[in-house]
């Protein structure tokens, strides 16, 4: 027979809550809803999350070390693999950093092409987000619609630079090829095609009653926490702070383009999704302005069919050797502030190249907001951060 103290002692006399032991569960890295190979170690009490600790490094290829072993022009090919959903922006930030170190002036037509391509890439990336986020929350249909639209954008990219995912279209001092004839009309046709499609997507997902039930009030990030955690992109604009590098620190020709920064002060998963879907419309507006500008610029003179045409490429030595200096350059990628801190020591290879990944920083807020939610919500929150593991793990 159990002796009394042991029995009573173990239970604790008086008012005692019913003990349910917390269960440690690991979600990922092969979990279908984590994008790529993210593993989150969860302490779960029944259905509720007590603690969430992301375990990174499954896709760590140490681009920063590789950057130090490549000459400047060679480095561009690496950048496509950082954030493989919007590879164009990676190219751009790397080339921008080197141009700033070299003090190089990029021809105007190249600047406008860069803005046009980057904004199209933003639309494509947001479409991927809407599709996969729908899958996380359980809607199978939007995924197919989003990827059908994205295919049309990728076809246009294929026409201009021959690739659909790892483009390396940008060069130090400009872009690798001028715009083929008739390409701008196709882009304009695409813009007209996209507007009704985006409204259709909104009805299907963003304003869907059940989607609202699954995302409103989930993963709420107050503005101070957003600032303190250094969030950027739709994550910080979803909490009401209009921090958009294209307006705050305009680079390239963004100061000549008017568009408005989309913010929503809900701070929860739904407002971030809404911000992304509205941003797509702003990007279409920018693309239209770029098309007008590019139409007035000189036509491409294909004197050298294979080399870059003179309008879009500045004079750059094959192995540029910038003077010893250091610079931090950041652009507004679809996920947020994508920055590169580059230190040159006069040789042909960068001395140090630090990549500031937006998804990496945005994910760091997860341990702070996850506790208190349910397991099903965690999937919605992680999906909402729109992480791409290539850039989180670098």
């Amino acid at each position, binding site marked *: 027979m159990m002796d009394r103290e042991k029995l009573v002692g173990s239970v604790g006399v008086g008012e005692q809550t019913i003990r349910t032991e917390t269960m440690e569960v690991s979600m990922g890295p092969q979990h*279908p809803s984590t994008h790529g190979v993210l593993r989150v170690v969860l302490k779960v009490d029944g259905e509720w999350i007590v603690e969430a600790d992301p375990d990174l490094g499954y896709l760590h290829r140490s681009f920063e070390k590789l950057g130090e072993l490549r000459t400047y022009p060679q480095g561009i090919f690496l950048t496509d693999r950082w954030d493989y959903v919007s590879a164009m922006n990676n190219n751009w930030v790397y080339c921008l950093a080197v141009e700033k170190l070299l003090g190089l002036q990029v021809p105007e037509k190249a600047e406008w092409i860069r803005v046009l391509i980057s904004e199209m890439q933003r639309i494509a990336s947001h479409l991927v987000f809407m599709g996969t986020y*729908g899958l996380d*929350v*359980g809607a199978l*249909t939007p995924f197919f619609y989003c990827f059908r639209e994205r295919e049309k954008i990728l076809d246009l990219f294929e026409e201009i630079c021959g690739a659909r995912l790892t483009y390396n279209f940008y060069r130090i001092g400009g872009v690798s090829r001028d715009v083929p004839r008739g390409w701008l009309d196709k882009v304009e046709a695409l813009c007209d095609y996209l507007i009704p499609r985006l409204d259709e997507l909104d009805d299907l997902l963003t304003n869907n009653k059940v989607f609202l039930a699954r995302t409103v009030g989930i993963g709420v990030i107050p503005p101070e926490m957003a600032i303190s955690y250094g969030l950027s992109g739709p994550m910080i604009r979803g909490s009401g702070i209009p921090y958009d590098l294209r307006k705050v620190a305009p680079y390239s020709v963004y100061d000549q383009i008017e568009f408005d920064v989309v913010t929503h002060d809900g701070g929860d998963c739904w407002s971030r999704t809404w911000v992304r879907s509205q941003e797509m419309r702003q990007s279409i507006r920018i693309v239209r302005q770029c098309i007008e500008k590019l139409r007035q610029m000189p036509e491409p003179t294909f004197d050298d069919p294979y080399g870059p045409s003179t309008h879009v490429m500045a004079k750059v030595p094959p192995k540029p050797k910038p003077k010893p200096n250091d610079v931090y350059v950041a652009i507004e990628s679809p996920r947020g502030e994508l920055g590169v801190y580059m230190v040159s020591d006069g040789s042909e290879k960068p001395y140090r190249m630090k990549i500031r990944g937006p998804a990496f920083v945005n994910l760091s807020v997860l341990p702070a907001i996850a506790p208190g939610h349910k397991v099903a919500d965690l*999937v919605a929150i992680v999906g909402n951060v729109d992480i791409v593991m290539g850039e989180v793990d670098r």
Partner: protein
Amino acid sequence: MTLTEISRAIARFLGFDPPTDQAAAQVILALIDALLIFGFLMLGVLVLIYVFRKIVGFIQARLGPRYTGPRGILQTLADALKLLRKEDIIPRAADRIAFNLAPLMVFLPAYLVYIVIPFGDPETGLVVRDLNVGVLYLLSISSVTVIGIVTAGWASANKWSLLGGMRSGAQLISYEVPMTLVFAVPVLLAGSLRLSDIVRAQGEFFWQWNAFRLDFFPFTLLAFITFLICALAETNQTPFDLPEAESELVAGFHVEYSGFKFAIFFLAEFGNTIAISAIATHLFLGGWKAPFPFLPDSGFWSLGWFFFKVSLLVLLIIWIRGTLLRVRIDQVMELGWKVLLPIGLICVTGVGLLVSIRPSPTEQAKQKVAVVSECPVSLQKDDGPFRWCRTHGRT
């Protein structure tokens, strides 16, 4: 040509002509009925899965199966063969007996439900056994699936499948309550639990069917809608397909099953979908009756109308499954207990009050049914296993 005559013809074809009075003959005839129903179920599920893939594909702007056979018709056959050929893995820590029993316990109710469902006008014998406790039978059989699902979850000895099993068990139970209430509405209107009586109690014109009746307007339509929602929840369809919520629990209770057993779960799920739509047509959409009296609906026409309505409902379910997204488990429970249950109560009390004011349906039922609905010929004349209850004036 009633069902039992078909089965007797098959028996004669098989070379023995059973004198209809021995119990043994009775059992054999029942066996043949069972095989006929099983054949229908398999065929129905095969067609349903193919149609399901094609339509969801169409909804999602893609083509669906196209390569197996002309326009992908043989796709489901190919899936079935693939599943049969697949290796049947049993986890080492699994509770072997329960693990093998669970798929059976989930499939049997989906199959037994068809005994009571008339496929057409009972006069033409298109029903296996038109029990006079029809609706109650449907309810109790469908409540047995919960045990199968819970056993499947428990027996595969893995944390995730247990969670999935308990979740879907809880969901099924909490939706059985509003379902029972909503079942009561057509029974109140018809005054009997027998499915064929319920269908006969519904009027000739389609606006006299239980779903769109104008004399009990708000309640019956509400009951029909609640029934559809509960039906979706009972068969684990979107938006309530929590158990197979890929993103959270990675395929719920049948995650450890593979090969033939997984095919049985799949068969049961789609079998249930057809069964639920068949029940909905009988209770709310006037069973085998044509929307207008002048359209022919006796004999094999009734079969035609019945399948037409069932396919409409199945298409509706597939459409919902293609568009809506999944609801969280606590929202499912909340909807079940806090919304559907009160609605069910309101419907039953509403119809109950209205029925008690108007002349009681039993008299109406009596005038309409001149002849007592005789059960299939074979049972009538001879000595069957239920001889006792027949000699006591009970059909």
